[in-house]
């Protein structure tokens, strides 16, 4: 085997023989055959978007905002302290207005770049005395259960409604997080050789009927960011951006990213940072 390879290298001979070299781009002809299906896709997309616009007007996410508000303002945990009187989301203790769109950011007291969910968890642990492992054991919602952290993230996110995404990319630690996140997004591994970019690195792609935003561009990144946290009508669950990162890796055939870790924070810095300057409409709704 080794000799064959070295032989091939020295000769730099393109493997000829029985196989025609496959063109990397599809032959132009199939365009005509796919045309009717492309129209159907556009019509379907239009219908989905109409439905979503209607649902956005009365988004069940608001129910979770209400719960989150109660949890933010109530004294809780072993230290019997309210997040409203102890948690700094980057704009001052207790200040929620506009905080969600300015994360991820670097927090000196934690010496880490943190996305919103990670920061709120940090506050629950450091200020209220909850145990991280208890939160990390069941961090995401299912049909029967919505964790406190999900309600809190929804509440905080709702207070950035109609504000521009403003991840502080000029700060060196945030910049570095963005760069590392970009590399993580490009990293192909696992049995299927998938990276984030395999699905999210090009314009105009979809998997089955699910459009895949190109997270490396401003417009695509905004499509990816808008909608999180989001109420998923299938199953009636409230889900966060942190949840989505994990579920992507599951579909990539990777192992699981640790909850509220650097890896997730850096990826979120990359994709949310790419959406900078665009308006966030608040918690979203999904089918």
């Amino acid at each position, binding site marked *: *085997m*080794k000799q064959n*390879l*070295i032989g*091939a*290298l020295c000769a*730099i001979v393109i*493997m000829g023989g*029985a*196989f*025609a*070299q*496959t063109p*990397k*781009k*599809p*032959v132009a*002809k*199939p365009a005509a*055959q*796919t045309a009717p*299906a492309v129209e*159907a*896709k556009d019509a379907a997309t239009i219908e989905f978007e109409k439905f979503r616009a209607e649902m956005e007007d009365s988004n069940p996410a608001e129910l979770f905002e209400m719960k989150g508000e109660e949890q933010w303002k109530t004294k809780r945990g072993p230290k019997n302290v309210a997040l409203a009187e102890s948690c700094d989301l980057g704009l001052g203790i207790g200040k929620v207005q506009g905080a969600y769109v300015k994360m991820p950011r670097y927090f000196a007291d934690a010496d880490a770049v943190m996305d919103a969910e990670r920061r709120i968890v940090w506050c629950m642990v450091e200020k209220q005395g909850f145990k991280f492992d208890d939160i990390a054991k069941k961090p995401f919602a299912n049909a029967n259960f919505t964790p406190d952290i999900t309600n809190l993230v929804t509440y905080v996110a709702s207070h950035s409604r109609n504000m521009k995404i403003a991840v502080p990319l000029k700060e060196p630690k945030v910049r*570095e997080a963005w760069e*590392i996140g*970009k*590399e*993580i997004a*490009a*990293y*192909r*591994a*696992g*049995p*299927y*050789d*998938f*990276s984030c970019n*395999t*699905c999210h690195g090009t314009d*105009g*792609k*979809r*998997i*089955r*009927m699910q459009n*895949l935003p190109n997270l490396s561009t401003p417009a695509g990144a905004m499509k990816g960011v808008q909608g999180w946290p989001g109420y998923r009508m299938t199953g009636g669950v409230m889900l966060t951006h942190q949840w989505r990162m994990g579920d992507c*890796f*599951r579909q990539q*055939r*990777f*192992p*699981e990213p*640790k909850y509220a*870790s*650097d*890896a*997730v924070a*850096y990826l979120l810095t990359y994709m949310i940072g790419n959406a900078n300057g665009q308006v966030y409409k608040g918690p979203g709704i999904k089918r």
Partner: protein
Amino acid sequence: MKNNILPAAMATLLLIALPAAAEGDYRAKAIAVIKKDFQPRGQASIDRLAEDGLQAVCNRTGNKPPEGVGKAMEADQLANVKYPADGKLMGDWKAGEKLAQSGRGFTWSDKPGLPVGGNCYNCHQISPKETSFGTIGPSLYQFLKLRGTQPDIQKYVYSKIYNAKAYNLCSDMPRFGHISALGEKQIKDLVALLLDPESPANK
């Protein structure tokens, strides 16, 4: 992944060929963060995070390897394709269509040992009756009409499904046969889905 097929000679060539990049620092940091911040779950073990030779080359070259290296590695992938012993490459298109519809397998929520799906409709159009298809890969509708007359087309389709990287080193398409996601019978059925004149893909 286990099969590191990057021999020393090629690795040396590659290191000479690639410019030293500042990005290398971030890539190294990213790899360190990935190793630290992932945990095994279900059948998704930690060793999945280690790049095999092909993934390393594609990752380090932005999926655009230098031509000589790319061609040589493609040849190597092709040389490892295992064809059916009985020489028959076409199976049952009906089974192929069912298989193409299934996206299961290899995730941490999949039960190990259950049959793995072809995943085909996630990325490709195939039968015109199936309107829920992806566009990550090219349309395979009317495959027989468009490609059927190419020499050894059955062998091409079989080997492409077995290991798409044999034809395009950094292709987005998984190496279904190479990782034993799909076995001989499954691949034959998918070949039939594309090349059997009775298959809906060709109607």
